[in-house]
């Protein structure tokens, strides 16, 4: 149940069906140019998900509580221009029959040029439409990397345009980026307009298996249409989002742990104080046998909800929710696995508005298959 995010209003016009054609053209052209797997690849993941949820939870309910399905195909392709230069693209096709989104969607998620050094310390530079480097949850968002089925609520996956430099030196690693979109939670904040901002992420690996990271980004999060509802002289660019995040990864033997803590501050029109949010999650996995593993994630969000109501009236408040998900996974082979997950959310608050946020639950099964499309066509000699 991956949540989709349109990064900004301008982007929506560019990436619809044309994005699919562009992606198909890219794949078609490059496959004509080269057949060697050492220069070109097409890989993907096909997911089938089955849900049975409650009927009213804002976070988890699907298909009014009836069983629903989701089919997702993620395809990525890369072409090696030279040993140090690669161009890559990633697209997603999704069919979801839940009541709110009973439709097929497609999106070009990544399209970028990557320069990789062959030196030690190693570094790489990427430019184009990228996965946001904010936090670490998005780095294991693919179903084959995600220990559970759901994603953390506060860490929506976004694909801004920008440029990023990343690498490591000794125990330190870094990711420095200039991006055109903020990190937002869809439906909690207005859709943003493009505006470049820095995003920094530094990590310290104390010893192999234990890494602490910190990240920061600051930039506008409103859109230019909302500029009409601000005080004269104010610009939508004057209202910033600031995010300071910390993350930890630990692993040893058959045990793995990920955790993140994020503090966010938002400038809100007509308010002298910032509206603040705090989100954190902790997830753990243990592998019992080569095929069988289990995982659990606990998450607590105090998420910021900001909305323009009408005229000069704005709403800014926080919404608190606790969420827990537990899953069991089984690997049929290195490329195919199945997960069974139970998830439950608890919304905080005693006041009347909290009746709008009933607790919910979800039982889901996900079958994932990762494939190498090229290998289907490359015959043995």
């Amino acid at each position: 149940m991956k949540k989709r995010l349109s990064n900004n209003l301008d982007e929506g016009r560019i990436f619809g069906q044309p994005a699919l054609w562009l992606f198909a053209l890219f794949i078609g052209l490059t496959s004509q140019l080269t057949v060697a797997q050492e220069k070109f690849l097409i890989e993907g993941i096909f997911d089938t998900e089955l849900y049975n949820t409650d009927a009213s939870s804002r976070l988890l309910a699907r298909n009014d509580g009836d069983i629903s399905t989701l089919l997702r195909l993620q395809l990525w392709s890369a072409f090696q221009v030279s040993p140090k230069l690669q161009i890559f693209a990633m697209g997603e096709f999704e069919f979801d029959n839940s009541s709110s989104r009973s439709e097929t969607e497609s999106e070009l998620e990544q399209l970028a040029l990557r320069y990789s050094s062959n030196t030690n310390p190693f570094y790489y530079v990427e430019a184009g439409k990228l996965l946001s480097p904010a936090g670490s949850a998005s780095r294991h968002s693919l179903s084959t990397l995600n220990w559970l089925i759901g994603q953390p609520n506060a860490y929506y996956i976004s694909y801004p345009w920008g440029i990023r430099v990343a690498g490591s030196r000794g125990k330190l690693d870094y990711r420095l980026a200039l991006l055109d979109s903020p990190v937002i939670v869809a439906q909690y904040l207005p859709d943003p307009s493009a505006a470049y901002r820095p995003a920094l992420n530094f990590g310290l690996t104390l010893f192999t298996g234990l890494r602490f990271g910190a990240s920061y980004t600051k930039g506008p999060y409103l859109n230019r249409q909302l500029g009409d509802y601000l005080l004269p002289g104010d610009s939508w660019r004057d209202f910033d989002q600031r995010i300071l995040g910390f993350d930890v990864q630990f692993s040893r033997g058959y045990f793995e742990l990920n955790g993140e803590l994020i503090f966010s501050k938002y400038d809100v029109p007509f308010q002298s104080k910032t509206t603040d949010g705090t989100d954190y999650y902790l997830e753990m996995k243990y592998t019992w046998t080569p095929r069988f593993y289990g995982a659990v994630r606990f998450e607590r969000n105090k998420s910021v909800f900001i909305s323009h109501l009408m005229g000069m009236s704005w709403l800014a408040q926080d919404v608190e929710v606790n969420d827990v998900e537990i899953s069991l996974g089984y690997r049929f082979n290195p490329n195919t696995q199945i997960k069974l997950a139970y998830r439950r959310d608890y919304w905080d608050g005693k006041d009347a508005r909290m009746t709008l946020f009933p607790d919910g639950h979800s039982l889901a099964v996900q079958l994932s298959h990762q494939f190498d499309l090229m290998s289907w066509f490359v015959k043995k000699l």
Partner: protein
Amino acid sequence: METELKNYSFDEALIPRVGRWYLAVFIYLCMGLLLLLLPCLTQAEVGLSTGTGTLHGKVRVTKRLISQRMRFRLYQSVHPQPPPTIEEERSDEWRNIVIYLESKASMPDFQESHQANPQIIQLGETFFPHVLPVVKGSTVEFLNEDPIFHNVFSLSRTKSFDLGRYPKGVSKSVTFDKTGIVPVFCHLHSDMSAIIMVLNNPYFSVPDSEGQYLIEGVPPGSYTIVAWHERSERADLQVEIKPGEDIELNITVPITDEETSEQ
């Protein structure tokens, strides 16, 4: 006098009655020892008295047989290690070939490794070697030489294992007690792969950096010589090994029709 002789059998006449039990135990011990040593004696006989054969030659690799795949990850590691260049790997393509012998005749059970510490190293987020042939019963060591975690595993029917995550300088071992092909992967780096070929005899060779292979000490007999590469269809040649014979056999991988007809 005649009567007295009838009371003694031939052996009783030669061996005192007290020593008969010792003789029986001694004979049984000798028979047991002989049974234990028989396989070794058989091999020794093959190797010393009748002589063994040798196979050697040059392996030529078709350029299209490159097992190197483009390395690309949507999400790079936090501490990415520089990969070996494709040029380096191309020159090493011989190392991904295994020349081995199969025999229809029954062969001794080689339940011990004829290699000194067969090992697969993880370096530069790559398994070295990519292909490792071993004799059934061998224990392979997986040594991490990268300053990051690796998690070596296989879900093969021949051998299923998961070594967990372990850091640089640490190695873990797996014993392969069934013949077959064992694809090996890393949970953390999906483009890392290796293949362990578990064979039932020690008559195999991996060509050196110049493509030369050598299989020594082959007992006389009829064999099928197989040149294996992960991207090549299985093709094989028949070869007759005679005592003391040194056969030169150059092989192209994949094996061509010409080579097949020559035999």
